[in-house]
């Protein structure tokens, strides 16, 4: 079996704005490969294309150009989806269900047998610290509780690979610590983890490699051990700010060059 579990080649996405029918490129030529057992963190400012990248890898969106392969299968393939877990950004679930009912529902979608589903749901409820709220309707859940439940549902099938979009969002410091621990225990088990986050200290602590995105492009990919406390960078935040500053300067220079060449032509 191949060791590469996520492979994207020139993955690009254009959207058409509904009013002016103008095409907007939200992701350009993403080339990425993540190996089995690796923890990859995707970082970048808002609107950089992080969530779009995940949606393309999961088959929720179709690429305009390029392709994505997950576990050796095309993005969105049901056989691959059966082996992965996904936590969407700011999750909002069925408010009429209790947390336990929701986990049961998620397990049923994977075709997990009833007894196994109940056991797994019970384990996960404990892991994410929702024991007291498990039988409460989700309409009464706080943002942090929904986030915890979202993490639990993404693990119901014991996935080989997880995609988490902003897993620390909405969590208090205790919640963040708990999620960090879950991430580390998944890592220990050999699960491949791909996640987006703005919280760089957490990324620094759990990731093997990071990719920095800016305006729909992957600007740099680097191993975390090569960044923190080494070379010119104090820590990951320092590295990130410098990469973004350089990317901004490059994009400004490119825009200026474009304007100059237009003026020269006219």
């Amino acid at each position, binding site marked *: 079996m191949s060791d590469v579990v996520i492979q994207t080649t020139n993955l690009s996405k254009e959207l058409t704005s509904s009013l002016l029918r103008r095409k907007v490129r939200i992701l350009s030529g993403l080339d990425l490969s993540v190996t089995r057992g690796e923890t990859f963190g995707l970082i970048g400012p808002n609107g950089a294309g992080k969530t779009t990248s995940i949606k393309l890898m999961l088959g929720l969106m179709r690429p305009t150009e390029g392709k994505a392969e997950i576990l050796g299968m095309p993005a969105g393939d*049901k056989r691959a989806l059966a082996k992965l877990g996904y936590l969407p950004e700011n999750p909002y679930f069925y408010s*009429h269900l209790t947390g336990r009912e929701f986990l049961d*529902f998620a397990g049923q979608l994977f075709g997990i047998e009833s007894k196994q589903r109940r056991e797994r749901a019970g384990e996960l409820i404990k892991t994410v610290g929702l024991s007291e709220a498990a039988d409460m309707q989700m309409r009464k859940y706080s943002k942090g509780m929904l986030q915890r439940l979202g993490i639990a549902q993404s693990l119901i099938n014991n996935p080989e690979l997880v995609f988490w979009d902003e897993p620390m969002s909405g969590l208090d410091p205790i919640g963040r610590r708990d999620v960090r621990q879950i991430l580390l225990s998944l890592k220990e088990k050999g699960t491949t983890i791909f996640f987006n986050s703005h919280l760089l200290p957490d990324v620094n602590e759990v990731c093997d490699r990071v990719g920095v995105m800016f305006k729909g492009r992957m600007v740099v990919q680097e191993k975390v051990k090569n960044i923190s406390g080494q070379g010119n960078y104090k820590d990951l935040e320092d590295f990130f700010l410098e990469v973004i500053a350089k990317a901004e300067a490059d994009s400004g220079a490119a825009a200026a060059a474009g304007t100059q060449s237009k003026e020269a032509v006219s």
Partner: protein
Amino acid sequence: MSENSRNNSVDAVIAIALNTFRETVRDRIIYALILFAAIVTVLGIILGSLSVGQDIRILKDIGLAAISLIGGIIAVFAGTNLVYKELERRTIYIIFTKPVSGWQFVLGKYIGLCLCVLVMVAAMGAFLSIIVASVGSGFGGASFFDQLREITQELSLIYLELLFVTALATFFSTFSTPVMSVLFTLAIWLAGHLGESLLELGKLSQNPFLAQCLSIVFYCLPDFAGLTRIRGHLLYGTVPGTEVLTYLITYVLAYVLMLLVLAAIVTERKEFT
């Protein structure tokens, strides 16, 4: 398809159906609508008592009309929100990042809503039967079981029509906003009841081209008028033959299947941005 993947397919449909059923029955508006149907049914006693010897018929007519209307409202409003709500709340991401196909999603949603409509129609029908039985015994009318049989036959036809309406609402909900879906569903539902008038209009126009166009529209629209006609016969104690019933059931199921297949194709091609 292996036995295991077939089981998984069925599991996903059942899970989505039960979730939809639970979501719909836990909506308090539905109970307000059922209460309204019950009040209208009770009012039927008063209206029935004003007639001469037709009290049970009027009570049944009013009660069944209320059930048909309320069942229709539940089917249209819950149906047109089926997919839109999932998109708006982004719960659809949770479903389509699991091994679930578009057809499983659409079928599960449809079955869940049909199950909910069935329970509501049965509950309102039970209430009507009790009222009819209590009023009927006082006036020495037909036996309780005769009344129950007639009401059950009527309710079955109402439910058959609601299966149709639910499929229409489900189909429109896959690509349109709830408001537009409600308008489209109600327009087709109404046009389905007035279909034969289109043929008449074609004849009256004496324009062969217009008559041809209207007859094409007539054959494309669902024929709800046929169902209403049979319900009318039932009210007067004429039970339709097996052939007619088989034709009706096959017609409705074929139409429902076509709408669900189209809904599944639309869902499968959808992008979730």
